[in-house]
């Protein structure tokens, strides 16, 4: 951190000062160039996902903590090198057809209001809202962490789409000053994109073993302009995941409500808990 970032005379409660609309929701950010944020070495954003909204996979240059302020849904994290342990059941083989290959992917987790999600540096994650209530998730990126070997500016690397990177504006502001005109021009020219879009199409064609039409999609070329970082999944997302369990607290409450059973003994009726354990 530069000197004088923590020479703060007065603190104010801050509200987000930027909002990026997407097809399935929006992302609000607080300016990480503000002195208190620079002093703490963090960047803050808040993401709202409507029903059936999928936040596209991304990773950041520092560890993240995400707090679920509202709603419930599912999320996945991709740890490089870890096995794909969630498997789709094999489709029954029909006559004359080869069996459909199973889909395999890494673990999927449920989340609900009050959950804190820990995302290590560089680990890609995605999130999906499968309920009617919008999901509101507040996330912090610790750019001051030893895990971040870049500068203090938060950076989000999207794997897909051609949306604006939510901290790009602030990055350009910081570079601004005498270059403000150039910065504005750059801002207009550079709408941001995903990391695959920067590679030559021939590279991706060879790396994925797919045709150029698919490569164009990987690079976000066939995108509608307003889809952004959060897309809507028409008809809902179907993934292999176990049904959500009732939260522990609710289970405990249910236990309390249970009426003890009456057990006949030589001393009369004695109450005994319904749940006897070995």
């Amino acid at each position, binding site marked *: 951190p530069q000197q004088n970032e923590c020479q703060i005379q007065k603190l104010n409660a801050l509200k987000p000062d930027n909002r990026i609309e997407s097809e399935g929701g929006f992302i609000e950010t607080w300016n990480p160039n503000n002195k208190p944020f620079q002093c703490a070495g963090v960047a803050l954003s808040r993401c709202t996902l409507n029903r059936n909204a999928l936040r596209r996979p991304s990773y950041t240059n520092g560890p993240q903590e995400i707090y679920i302020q509202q709603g419930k849904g599912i999320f996945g994290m991709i740890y490089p090198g870890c096995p794909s342990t969630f498997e789709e059941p094999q489709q029954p083989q029909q006559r004359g057809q080869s069996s459909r290959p199973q889909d395999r992917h890494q673990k999927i987790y449920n989340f609900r209001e009050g959950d804190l999600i820990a995302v290590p540096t560089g680990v890609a994650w995605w999130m999906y809202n499968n309920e009617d209530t919008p999901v509101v998730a507040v996330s912090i990126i610790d750019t001051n962490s030893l895990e971040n070997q870049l500068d203090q500016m938060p950076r989000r690397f999207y794997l897909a789409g051609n949306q604006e990177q939510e901290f790009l504006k602030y990055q350009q502001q910081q570079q601004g000053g005498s270059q403000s005109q150039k910065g504005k021009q750059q801002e207009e020219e550079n709408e941001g994109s995903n990391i695959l879009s*920067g590679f030559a199409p021939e*590279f991706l064609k060879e790396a994925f073993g797919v045709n150029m039409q698919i490569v164009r999609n990987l690079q976000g070329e066939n995108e509608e302009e307003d889809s952004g970082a959060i897309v809507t999944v028409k008809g809902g*997302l179907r993934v292999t995941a176990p049904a959500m369990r009732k939260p522990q607290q609710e289970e405990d409450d249910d236990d309390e409500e249970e009426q003890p059973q009456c057990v006949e003994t030589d001393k009369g009726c004695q109450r005994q808990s319904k749940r006897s354990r070995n």
Partner: protein
Amino acid sequence: GIDETICTMRLRQNIGQNSSPDIYNPQAGSITTATSLDFPALWLLKLSAQYGSLRKNAMFVPHYTLNANSIIYALNGRALVQVVNCNGERVFDGELQEGGVLIVPQNFAVAAKSQSDNFEYVSFKTNDRPSIGNLAGANSLLNALPEEVIQHTFNLKSQQARQVKNNNPFSFLVPPQESQRRAVA
């Protein structure tokens, strides 16, 4: 007791061409790494290194290092290298030749394709246990995503999403395509 530990610590490990590679494909090349797990002195330095050798027209798939900067020094031959930043901008697109150095910041995506018979490099990494995330091929990030997430993330059909996941069976190094192999022969 530091004389039995620090003073006698092993301070040399060979990762060059004749060492035992960690990743090997006779048609594509090999990669050998030294981290603090197999070379404990690196724990003190918080550094590590990777030696790589790529056969002609073989490719190191697009990937990124999660927790380290990479300083790539070309030892032999030449390769076409592309580096992409968080805004999807190609910040390097050129040949890396013998004696040249390329610094790839943490989390920036990089891919390389060998232009010569044998491109050799050493990549110094600023973390003693670097983690690499591949963006394509077996065990890659996209390979580990649910098919429907890929489908809706990239606006693809189900069959296309399956191809993105499964078409490349190689995990790090992709051998040259058949036509390129024939041309070399």
